């Protein structure tokens, strides 16, 4: 059987410019050929059943859980690509951590005050606070696209509540179970999220005693979009899942969790919500007072502002004395009159992003949108340009997904969200691979909530 591929994009993960399969996909392709369409169709059905059975879902308003669509054909990242990605991600994490420390510490002059002070995520009450080990960024998610030939480019940083690590794990797990044939002959880099996170918890709560710290995961509940992830992490880490009302700050300033066995002092709150003060009054002050470790802490979210993103290369040069290892998408500061004019004149080919957006909300990829939306976005950036940035649209890579009905491979745009952890001893772990998110056909927006798929992602040893 010869697998047909329809309408492949210009930069393909799967084939080179001459239409030849990239050598690192030879094993996967041969497994596809050998199993044949009937077996593949059955395996793909099985994978959907397992997704549903395991509750691998995300929640969409209003009141609807959706199973996470996955495509088991893996993305394979060559070792030399990964060496560059992991070094670049670690470098960026360190630079942002230094910037946030300077911002709330002795001051900084890398990012203009007009940007920082107009950012909702800048919190003056964190000024003068110094977190243990100067650790501001614990868990970091970064969105990349591949432009071909090992050129990976950063689209955005996620520092508040980066989510998706368990989607990466769960997709791998299901594909390994349902399609073991793909992995034959591959030597894939392993990673251990559980051990890395527990090590992080221990490093930020060194005085917790011989049994290690008591950690809880603070969730916004089962109607949060990433509740699957909260529950999965809770099981994985042995950390109880709590909601806001389950926590309180005691008279001794420590944080307590109400449990069936009585109230227990908590050493580490791994928070998966944004507005701490609304959910747990006093939690932030307890953190500032050193009474509890908070992951992620308070302060780093300023770098989630998509306008602050523009200065990260400068942070790397200034704070680390290095050149950025990874490029980032060329972006435009719309507080600047010249840049506004440029964005206005080139709107049709740009991406417009809300400074405060996350998870694909407030992202307009103009080349993929219709005329009516163009008019709306033009009006938005003319009337409130200070709330947006403009980014050059990149022609990034496609990968193939298996279409069991058409018995063919279909190209779709893919990105890569990579997760990294920095612990109290300054160690940075970048989990090999990441979450490959696949856009809907014809779209470049890859978020689950926008109808995309997840792919297992391997890094070759």
């Amino acid at each position, binding site marked *: 059987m010869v697998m047909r591929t329809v309408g492949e994009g210009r930069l393909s993960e799967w084939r080179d410019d001459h239409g030849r399969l990239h050598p690192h996909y030879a094993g996967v392709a041969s497994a596809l050929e050998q199993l044949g369409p009937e077996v593949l169709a059955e395996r793909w059905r099985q994978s959907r059943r397992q997704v549903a059975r395991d509750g691998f879902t995300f929640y969409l308003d209003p009141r609807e859980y959706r199973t996470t669509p996955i495509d088991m054909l893996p993305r394979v990242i060559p070792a030399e690509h990964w060496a560059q990605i992991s070094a670049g991600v670690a470098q960026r994490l360190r630079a942002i951590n230094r910037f946030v420390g300077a911002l709330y510490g002795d001051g900084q002059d890398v990012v203009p005050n007009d940007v920082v*002070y*107009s950012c909702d995520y800048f919190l003056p009450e964190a000024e003068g606070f110094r977190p243990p080990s100067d650790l501001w960024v614990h868990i970091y998610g970064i969105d990349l696209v591949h432009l071909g030939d090992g050129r990976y480019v950063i689209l955005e940083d996620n520092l508040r509540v980066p989510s998706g690590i368990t989607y990466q794990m769960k997709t791998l797990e299901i594909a390994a179970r349902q399609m073991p044939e793909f992995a034959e002959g591959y030597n894939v880099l392993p990673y251990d999220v559980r051990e890395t996170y527990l090590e992080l918890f221990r490093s930020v709560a060194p005085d917790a005693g011989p049994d290690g710290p008591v950690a809880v995961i603070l969730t916004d509940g089962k109607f949060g979009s990433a509740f699957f992830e909260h529950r999965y992490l809770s099981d994985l880490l042995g950390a109880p899942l709590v909601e806001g009302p389950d926590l309180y700050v005691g008279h001794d300033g420590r944080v307590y969790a109400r449990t069936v066995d009585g109230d227990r002092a908590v050493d580490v709150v791994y928070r998966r919500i944004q507005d701490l003060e609304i959910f747990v009054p006093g939690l932030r002050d307890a953190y500032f007072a050193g009474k509890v470790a908070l992951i992620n802490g308070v302060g780093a979210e300023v770098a989630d502002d998509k306008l602050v993103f523009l200065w990260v290369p400068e942070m790397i040069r200034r704070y680390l004395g290095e050149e950025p290892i990874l490029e980032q998408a060329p972006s435009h500061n719309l507080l600047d*009159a010249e840049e*506004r004019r440029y964005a206005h004149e080139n709107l049709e080919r740009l991406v417009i992003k809300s400074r405060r957006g996350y998870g694909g909300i407030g992202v307009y990829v103009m080349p993929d949108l219709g005329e009516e939306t163009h008019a709306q976005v033009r009006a938005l950036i003319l009337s409130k340009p200070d709330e947006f940035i403009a980014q050059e649209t990149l022609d990034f890579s496609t990968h193939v997904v298996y279409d069991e009905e058409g018995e063919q491979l279909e190209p779709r745009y893919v990105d890569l969200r990579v997760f990294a952890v920095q612990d109290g001893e300054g160690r940075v772990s970048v989990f090999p691979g990441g979450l490959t998110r696949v856009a809907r056909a014809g779209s470049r927006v890859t978020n689950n909530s926008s109808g995309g798929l997840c792919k297992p992602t391997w890094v070759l040893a």
Partner: protein
Amino acid sequence: MQADMGPGLSEQAVVASYLYSARYEYSQAVLHNDNQVRVFPRDGEGQQALHYEIWTQPPSRVLPFSDRFGNQVNRVRAVEHHTQLVVATTGRVRLSTLAPYVEDVSIESLREVPESFEYTAATVLVDPLRLFELAGEVIGGATGLIEAARSVTDWVHGHIHYLRGTTDVTTTAHEVLAAGEGVCQDMAHLALAMMRAVGLPCRYASGLLTDQVGETHAWVEFFHPDAGWLAADPTRGRMLPPASDYVKLAVGLDYTDVRPISGTFLSKGAAAHLAAIAQVRFGEHESSMADALALLDDAHIVPR
């Protein structure tokens, strides 16, 4: 010519001092209150900023920056629990008393100016498309920029009845037209929409009238390729008034860009904006937080 305040103009200039004070009350404790304040003197167009101060009660961290219009902004964030917030500012400016004398130019000459692309934009409150027909009629055969701006200013002054309490901060230009009444802000929005409909770059100006105690005032500035931004005040029916009529605090595309105080607070309760009042006096006057509080006591104005 409208000119920047040079040393040679000092004889035709006056110094004015202002005090602005606003109070908010909350039905339950506020945990943090985060606001951007735009009640500081601007530089330019016949006004020179000399000095300003800001206080809040409870005390706040004050973070100064400029927005994209060059307005001086101070973000004030209070994290002490409170049920009342007072924001007060004081400042001093030097103002030209000369009315600008400017040669008119043709509307055509605006085509090439960079300001045209942004300052003719539609906003939520100012939608020129809906006023296209009316604006064309009002301007009639006018070919001069100032002539056209004057037609619009006079028309709004003559057709919109000044009345408080029938409009609010969300009232759009075409709603003002339909109602036939409103306050200075509404008249400014309507004039802006009509000017933008015929391609005149123009902006909303917010400030204080120098001859009274009261609320903030709103007027319009339109762009002249040689002379820069020129004032037109539809509420008072005045074209090209001298800078000394106002203390100019902020400019923007519409009211939402110049709100004196805007922001968010975290509380289980609701907020009531009780009062805002401003006082402008000629000469150099020092004011304190106590003066600001005393001024508030005199305020019987409950803004919309």
